[in-house]
């Protein structure tokens, strides 16, 4: 039992070793040209320190959600395509129509996103619900533009 974990131990050692070796090598060969921006921790373009109560553009989350529509599609389609000939023998035409139905459902998801205008990067604010947005109490007045519009902030994702 314990000897089986030897693989894990070797893996652990190699992993640690890789980090140490690559850090040492890069320290030896890189130019030493310091700059304050380079000293900060890389955090997707965000300030690594400071108040977490910043307004984040909700659009990034929406994009992440659309991505799932296509991501899930490919996860299921790739094994299906690889095994298609085998499945054709056991399941017959059902193997094809099953996937056709699945893609139809995902296509409906895409149609939904498209129709709601969420594929546009700058979504029109003329829609009724966005005009009704009032500044929330957690936001300070400088975060919310006049007329209750949500300011499009430029935080990178």
């Amino acid at each position, binding site marked *: 039992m314990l000897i089986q974990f030897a693989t894990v131990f070797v893996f652990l050692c190699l992993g640690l070793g890789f980090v140490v070796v690559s850090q040492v090598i890069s320290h030896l060969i890189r130019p030493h040209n310091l700059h304050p921006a380079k000293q900060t921790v890389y955090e997707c373009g965000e300030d690594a320190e400071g108040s977490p109560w910043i307004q984040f553009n909700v659009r990034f989350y929406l994009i992440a959600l659309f991505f799932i529509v296509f991501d899930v599609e490919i996860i299921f389609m790739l094994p299906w395509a690889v095994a298609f000939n085998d499945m054709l023998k056991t*399941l017959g035409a*059902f193997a094809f129509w099953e996937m056709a139905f699945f893609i139809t459902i995902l296509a409906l998801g895409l*149609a*939904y996103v498209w129709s709601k205008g969420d594929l546009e990067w700058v979504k029109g604010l003329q829609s009724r619900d966005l005009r009704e947005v009032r500044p929330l109490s957690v936001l300070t007045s400088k975060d919310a533009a006049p007329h209750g519009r949500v300011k499009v902030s430029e935080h990178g994702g």
Partner: protein
Amino acid sequence: MNFTWSDAAYFGPEAVMGLTFLLCVLGDLVTRGRRHVVPFGTLLVGTAISLVLALLHPPVSSHAILGQMVVVDGFAHFFRLLFLGITFVTALLSWSSREIMGRDREHQGEFYALAAMLCFGMMVMAESADIVMLALSLEAVSITSYILAGFARFSFRSSEAALKYVLWGAVSSAVMLYGLSLFYGLTGATSYEGIRAGLSGGQGGMALLVAILFVMAGIGYKISAVPFHFWTPDVYEGAPAPVAAIFASGPKIAGFALMIRFFYVALVQDDSQGTLALLDDVQWPWVLAIISAATMTLGNMAAIRQNSVRRLLAYSSIAHVGYMLMGFVVLSANGLAAVLFYLFVYAIMTIGAFLVVVALNNRVSGEEIDDYAGLGFREPLVAAMMFLFLISLTGLPPTAGFIGKFYLFAAAGEAGLWWLAILGVLNSVVSLYYYMRIARAMYFTPPELSGRVGLAQAHLILLVVLAVPTLVLGVFWSPLKEFADQSLRMLLGGG
């Protein structure tokens, strides 16, 4: 894992509801979210077709489909009919509700799509016979519920309710999944039958104890049993009233269905004495009995202090979970039949009571008990219906609630848990006090305004439709009891 077309025949009602969900979304898109009657109509027609399919083909034997992941039997049939009925009624009551149909015109159609998805998920929850399907159906119901809780997007309370629900739900889902993974680790099986077979050796020890506790925590959250009930009052109060009506009935009942099937099929061994004991050395009936006692007592004690009708009903729904767990503790055929009977009755009277809240909410802003003052003079019909639902919730004759409670207490007594049955009766007496506070406000407090409140016609009709079975089942209950017994036969007989 082969799929055959004959499976489709057994899965008909669920397939129709799944398709209804897609068509509701499509209908909403095609009409550009302007004609809400399209998704609404689609939902009603889909539910009706599904109901007809279910009624035309009641299962005659237990039938495992979709790679043994779903079992269609009498038990599933019972809950199918219940969930379809709940979906139909709540769709109708939402259509006339200002909270759902009032503002934010762009998204109202989606409400009906979500209701279809919720119904689909609940039906699969009652049928799943595999922990993978259990987790999937539970998530389908949970995620839909989160969106519904926050459906009034520009209401702070609704958003807060949704956030609380998501946080609680995410944590308890994670805990439950961990428990399920332990079951898989212990037995190497994902099907309930496989788990039962794998556990029959008697080993498991600490890991099994943790697994059972974690799964109980996940289910306890879904049915809002103490100590996993904290989200209930806040969510019921914050969510739009029609959504609260759905939550108090649908997902909670689905949680019970899932719990009964999982515990009964995966964890129970026949000890040849008619009653059934759970695996492992721990005295599970005692654990469940204490949860049951704590749930009903805490629900009732907390309800006494509430002034908001919605919070009061939320705590009362917690108390009712306690009563129903009483039938689950003994895990005998009689106990489970009593639970099924009570779930059916509970759905009717709870939706009825929430329907009064929904109907009044259209016209009156407040939801305190004082806001119901003089309702008996201004809206005699509504007040009379509310009174009927309240005495049914208390469990007084001649209502369905009395019969339901009688069966539950009898089942507990039969199993020798007299203290639990007596505690249940005492709790019912306590509940009489706070239910009658609403009745007192309606009949003995003079109204501040005179004249009719002016409620939606559809709500009045629905109130009567729900009141009739509450009263009829109180005097003529044997058909429902027989139906409940019959529904359990395949589950109990087949093991």
